[in-house]
Structures are given as C-alpha cells and as structure tokens.
C-alpha cells in the first residue's frame, strides 16, 4: 500500500539551539539597557496666584547675589555652613520657612548648592522668591 511508504520524519522542533538564541537576545538587551537613573532635588512649585500670608517671624530670608555670596537673616554665611545653621534655626522654630531669593544673574550652580544645604538640614518648607531684575 502507498500509505505505508510514507516517510516518517521526526516531528519535533530541534531545541538544542534554543539556549543560544535566547543568550543572543539576552546579551542584546543587557547591552542596550541603561540602568542609570535620574537623580536630583525634588520640589513642588506653588500654584499660580496662590499667595499666603505668613507670619514674619516664621520666615528666614536667604539672599544670594550674582557673585554667589549668601546672606542668611542679614548675616553673610559660607554656603557650606548653611546646613548647620539651618538645623539650629529649625530646632528653635520648627515652622520656619526658608525663603530663597536670588539675583537674576546668579548662577544655577550656587542656587542648587544652597538648596542642597537646606535639604541636608531636613528643611521641608522652602520658598523660592522671584529674582528682581
């Protein structure tokens, strides 16, 4: 009979090279994956036109001029000492708001350094005043 003469080929899919294929794909994704996460200082901006009255004694003004010199409550201070001073001030008054005011030509670098110092003092109430131009 004709039916009996039919060839009996193996009906299985060869899986010996499966590992190789998977490895190849794995290496491709390993190489293209970038694990570097963005890091930075997070802040929430206030809504537009939402000015709240704050008691004057709860505000500490931080003024930064164009040369990167900082005044904290009318006293000049080195940037590296802000964290320590801010921590002391927060102990005296936990409701203290730090109001950071920069000059229009102040470098962003200095502003971030000051913000970092305030974050190190665990200050959560930070206000950023608009520079006068």
């Amino acid at each position, binding site marked *: 009979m004709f039916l009996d003469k039919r060839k009996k080929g193996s009906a299985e899919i060869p899986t010996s090279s499966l*590992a190789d294929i998977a490895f190849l794909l794995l290496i491709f994704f390993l190489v293209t994956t970038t694990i570097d996460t963005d890091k930075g200082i997070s802040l929430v901006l206030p809504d537009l036109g939402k000015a709240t009255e704050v008691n004057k004694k709860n505000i500490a003004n931080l003024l930064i001029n164009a040369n990167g010199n900082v005044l904290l409550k009318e006293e000049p201070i080195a940037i590296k000492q802000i964290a320590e001073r801010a921590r002391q001030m927060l102990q005296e008054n936990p409701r203290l708001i730090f109001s950071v005011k920069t000059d229009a030509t102040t470098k962003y670098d200095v502003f971030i350094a000051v913000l970092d110092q305030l974050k190190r003092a665990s200050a959560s109430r930070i206000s950023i005043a608009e520079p006068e131009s």
Partner: protein
Amino acid sequence: MKFKTKSKVSCGIPTASMPDIVFMLLIFFMVSTVFKESNGLNVVLPAAKRIEKLPGKRDVAVIWADRSGRISIDDKLIQIADIEPIIRAKARDELHPMKLVSLRIDKDVEMSKVTAIQQQLRTVGSTALNINYSTKTAVD
C-alpha cells in the same frame, strides 16, 4: 582492591533548564529596557548631596537648558513661551500622562532663565508643579 568500591556520581552540570533561566533573564531585561528617545542638549549638571532618585523615565518630561541659552524638549529647540503648550499637552496625554518635570539645566545658566521656566510650569498648574532639579552626586 579497595579502589573499585568508589561510587561514581555524575559530575556534569544539568543544562536542561538553562534555556528557562536565560528566558527569564531575557524577559526581565526586555521589560525593564527603556530605549533612549532623546539625547538632549550638552549640559554640565550641578552637583548635590541630598538627592532623590526619580521614580522612572516613562512619565517624566525633561526640559533641557544649556549655557548658551537654548531650551529643548524632546530634541526640539524651543522658546521659553513654547514650554507651556508643550507641557500642557504632555500632562493631558492619555497613554502616559506626565507626572513630573525634570529640569536638566547647565550649572552656569543664570537664575532669571530658571525662574522663567518655572513660571511657565506654574501657568500649566497641577502635575507640572512637581519638578526635579537634575543633579550629579556630589563628593565632598
């Protein structure tokens, strides 16, 4: 002789489950891979110590500003006034609504520019108010 009583344990590593392991790794990397969509501008980020990691890259809008005063979103050079409509559109995106705005600003940019960008974000309101000043990790 005593030598002959030594038991013969097979010392090959079983490789039958290797494809499974490899596939598992493969699927992990496939899922976690986010292809770089934009290259942005050439900026030198400022450094800070007390920094937080961004939750992810998918729902973040990145605004670049370099020292020569150029501003870019998604590889397109734009003017400051264009930030508001673009960010507003991103906040309304149905698939991936923006949750955070990352500011990648060069350390030599003047604060007047930074404030101008922030003012644009404030006019958008709600989700655009969550910002992150992108920085490097400081060593001191």
